[in-house]
């Protein structure tokens, strides 16, 4: 199996990536992402990776470098073997903030993504309708996004992203605003869609249980600047029922991850004191 992996171009390869930002205005840039390398090999059945890390550590920044919205100061990012330089047409992101366009209907928002990729009008409508049904908004096609709750708006954004059916889907805390039940439903929907699509999903979250329920692999980052402190393969078979939350191995792994996150927060002050460039 290892030989097969290396024979195919990996989904994503991140090589020694660095990124610095002036954290306060008019200060020297401080490192936000520091020497991060990740190899995500291609998998026939698709791959699901979770990024876990404390708030403000640089997860969104790293995600933006994979999508090509930001370019690294140092290092390279490859998506499906091609170096990323500028917004990458092979990947698309569900952003952390609500990002529906208020001047379009719900359906129009989902169609917009397909339009930029040159999908024909009829096909566009069909796909957009299909994916809105999948996220449970089939009865709100003509609604204005501002008439929807925050969680529903986020589902529109998710439908817009998934309807494009790209090989790389990046999701930045997509379910953060949802209530527990909707969240569980959306997790299930996402897994179904992913298993059909067999693509790569990179999923940023604060939520340890969510990472364990969804991902094949969890990468844990330190507090700012983000460095990889742990790379875990999740051992659970699929499908993973919600009852897994009470499984003893699940709880053990949760404890490990909680410990890692605690540790990473504790080292924050060390990191910032040595982060002057």
């Amino acid at each position, binding site marked *: 199996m290892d030989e097969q992996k290396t024979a195919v171009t990996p989904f994503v390869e991140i090589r020694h990536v660095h990124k610095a930002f002036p954290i306060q205005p008019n200060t020297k840039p401080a490192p936000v992402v520091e020497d991060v390398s990740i190899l995500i090999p291609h998998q026939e059945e698709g791959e699901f990776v979770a990024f876990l890390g404390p708030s403000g550590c640089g997860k969104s920044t790293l995600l933006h470098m994979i*999508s090509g*919205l930001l370019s690294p100061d140092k290092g390279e990012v490859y998506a499906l073997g091609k170096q990323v330089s500028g*917004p990458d*047409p092979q990947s*698309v*992101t569900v*952003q952390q*903030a609500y*990002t529906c*366009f*208020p*001047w*379009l209907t719900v359906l129009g928002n989902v169609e*917009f*993504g397909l339009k*930029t*990729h040159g999908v024909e009008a009829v096909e566009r409508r069909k796909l957009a309708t299909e994916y809105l049904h999948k996220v449970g908004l089939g009865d709100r096609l003509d609604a204005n996004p*501002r008439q929807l709750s925050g969680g529903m708006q986020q589902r529109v*954004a998710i439908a*817009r992203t998934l309807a*494009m059916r790209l090989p790389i889907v990046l999701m930045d805390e997509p379910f953060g605003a949802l209530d527990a039940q909707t969240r569980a439903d959306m997790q299930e929907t996402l897994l179904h869609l992913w298993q059909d699509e067999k693509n790569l999903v990179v999923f940023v979250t604060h939520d340890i249980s969510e990472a364990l329920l969804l991902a094949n692999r969890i990468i844990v980052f330190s507090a700012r600047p983000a460095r990889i402190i742990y790379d875990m393969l999740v051992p659970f078979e699929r499908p993973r029922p919600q009852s897994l939350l009470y499984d003893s191995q699940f709880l053990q792994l949760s404890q490990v991850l909680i410990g890692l996150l605690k540790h990473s927060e504790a080292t924050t002050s060390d990191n910032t004191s040595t982060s002057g460039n």
Partner: protein
Amino acid sequence: MSNQKQHLLGMRGALSRRADTTLSLLALGIAFLVWFLVTYEYAPEKRLVTGLFLPSPIDIVHGTQNLFRTGEMPGAIWVSMWRIAQAMFYTILVGVPVGVLMGSVPIIDALLRKFVDGFKSVPPTAFIGLIILWFGIEERSKTVFLFLGAIFYMILMTKNAIRNVPESYVTVATDIGASRLQLIRSVLLPGALPQIWDAIIVCSGLMWTYIILAEWVNASSGLGHTISIASRLNRSDEVFAGVIAIAIISASTDWVLRAIRRRFLNW
């Protein structure tokens, strides 16, 4: 004391809605009463202020009736509205594209900014001589005058509207793969549309204040012309009638445009 309800003599903040309405209507009522009393003709030719200096409300009603009976007023209203509509058409036609381009493409902004900022500070009356030289005293010069009075505001406000479109919309569209053209046409322009509409409202108001100037000299029609003739003939009642007509039309245009904004452009 309490921060829930403002004390009547508190500083800043809002009065209760009822106190606010009562006070503003009271002020209006008192002004009207004083006006009525000082211009009331309690005996023939006997009033505190002459009709030439300040016509009474009744004089103005008569003046208005007179202007409508002769057909002067409806014609003048129509002509002025038509001039403003034309000037507005060109202001939007030029101002919106230029403003959108300045707001979205830094190179264009750098090239044009100094001109727009410079001309904005020149009162349009300063152009009157040139306008007459270039466009004559015909119909066209009126439209050009109104256009010059509004265009630079239109450009600047459109540019700011584009700048105020949330960055997150641009980020999402870029990530989805929108081209630069798609970004301008399908994200920046619709995102800025409510504020561009506000700019149109402001410019419409501006034009209704400039219309008197535009039609004062060398015009043979329009509300400005009506007022100018009436003032030359010492017909204060008709001057006021014309001014009130302008105020009413301008305010109702404003009201209609704002209603459209609230109903259709509310993001």
